[in-house]
């Protein structure tokens, strides 16, 4: 009996991720915060599909007929790939900004005002 531990982990991970995004000033750390948030949402989706005692929904020599729900796993796969794309783009932005401004501190990357 795992009770609701996975969902509670989701809340904790979200909290950590949000604190990182909102409190940190280094762009790379903010990206890490976003990645933690993405992990939280992925864990949330996967946990939704778990059926007690179920096995992975793959019929090749499966040990049992009771399987967990396949849709959340497909959604999580999509969400992971989107997360990878996001990280790649944000990291490239950070590299260009570092080249142009010489810093990745968001308080100093504020040339656009108004």
């Amino acid at each position, binding site marked *: 009996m795992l009770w609701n531990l996975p969902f509670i982990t989701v809340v904790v991970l979200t909290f950590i991720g949000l604190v990182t995004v909102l409190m940190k000033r280094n762009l790379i750390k903010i990206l890490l915060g976003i990645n933690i948030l993405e992990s939280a949402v992925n864990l949330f989706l996967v946990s939704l599909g778990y059926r007690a005692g179920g096995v*992975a929904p*793959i*019929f*090749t*020599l*499966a040990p049992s*007929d009771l399987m967990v729900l396949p849709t959340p796993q497909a959604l999580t*796969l999509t969400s992971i*790939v989107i997360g*990878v794309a996001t990280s*790649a783009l944000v*990291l*490239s932005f950070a*590299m*260009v900004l570092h*080249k142009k401004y010489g810093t990745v501190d968001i308080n100093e990357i504020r040339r656009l005002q108004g």
Partner: protein
Amino acid sequence: MSRIVRTAADIIYPFIVIFGLYVVAHGHLTPGGGFQGGAVIATGGALVIVAYSYEEVRDWLSGKVLMGQEVIGLVGFIGVALLAFAFGQVFFFNYLNASGSLFGTPVPYGINAGDLNTGGFVPLMNFAVGCEVWGGLTLVILYMLSAFSTEKEVS
């Protein structure tokens, strides 16, 4: 990196590629699929880039080829889906399933040992996506490295 690391990378690289291709090819039977396999192969590329330097790797891994790989993968994916129109079916209809031709062995309900020749167009799409992810992720690494070296661009 040292000579030991380079030699080890040389030896491991083909195995990583083959393992990735295995994951792609068995996507419809075992855990895995196009994305996972493509990512595995791109890891091999990253290993080689780490073991050697960007300047050396740039001569072997051409940006043009990788971009071509990515475009071919994507066009293959959407092309396989569009081909359903040629069979008079709806976009993304699995026209190869249970057709008796390539990948067309019917699969009944229930636990079985698995047959590679099943899956309809799913294996084709797995290959297309694997190709795309392989090219795409390696290309991202190459472009990011190109920002550090100033003389020559990824073409």
